[in-house]
């Protein structure tokens, strides 16, 4: 099937790759169908693109790339893929990810949810880019 998105143009996708979000995303409850789009220039970010609203897409990132031990907080994370939603700013160092409410996708069923972790220590605006370009540690 074909899908149009304003950022990515026309996308040819296989129906089996469609992800079903029965509750949408928080604040976007009406949007239930998404697809993951990879854009090589955006790596390691990936895109959660709405199949219903051509203006809607969310940059995602695998949290293990930016924080250690994060996934361990989730129990029963058997066959799931986890992402955090990234709010990216013009100035990269102002960019944040929301560690409090990750997106969990069941690989087998393609069902996705944005969950809320009951841990107030997890930041909703976690800065993951250090201000200085030099970060050799």
């Amino acid at each position, binding site marked *: 099937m074909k899908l149009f998105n304003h950022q990515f143009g026309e996308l040819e996708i296989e129906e089996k790759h469609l992800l079903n979000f*029965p509750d949408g995303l928080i*604040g*976007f409850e009406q949007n239930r169908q998404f697809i993951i789009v990879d854009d090589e220039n955006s790596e390691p970010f990936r895109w959660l693109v709405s199949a219903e609203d051509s203006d809607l897409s*969310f940059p995602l990132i695998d949290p293990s790339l930016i924080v250690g031990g994060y996934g361990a907080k989730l129990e029963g994370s058997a066959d799931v893929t986890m992402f955090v939603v990234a709010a990216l700013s013009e100035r990269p160092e102002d960019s944040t990810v929301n560690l409090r*409410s990750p997106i969990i996708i069941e690989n087998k069923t393609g069902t996705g949810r944005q969950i809320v972790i009951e841990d107030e220590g997890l930041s909703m605006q976690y800065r993951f880019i250090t201000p200085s370009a030099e970060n050799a540690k």
Partner: protein
Amino acid sequence: MLILSRKLDEAITIGGKIVVKVIAIQDGQVKLGIEAPKDVLIYRLELYQQIQQQNLKAAGARKQSVRKAADRLQKSKPSK
């Protein structure tokens, strides 16, 4: 906004399917027990609003900003 007064152990019902009960009142805090169908999602309002705000901000990202951030991430790759 509808305003109702309830005492400890009293409850209200919403739409016949949702019951909200006052479980405890202590030190200016009210503990609520909520019974609702599984498909009704329940959040603390301020938490919901903050997440919504972050999602809104994320949804506004242009490819360009993402590429910039991606470049910076690749450059400063932490060892772990």
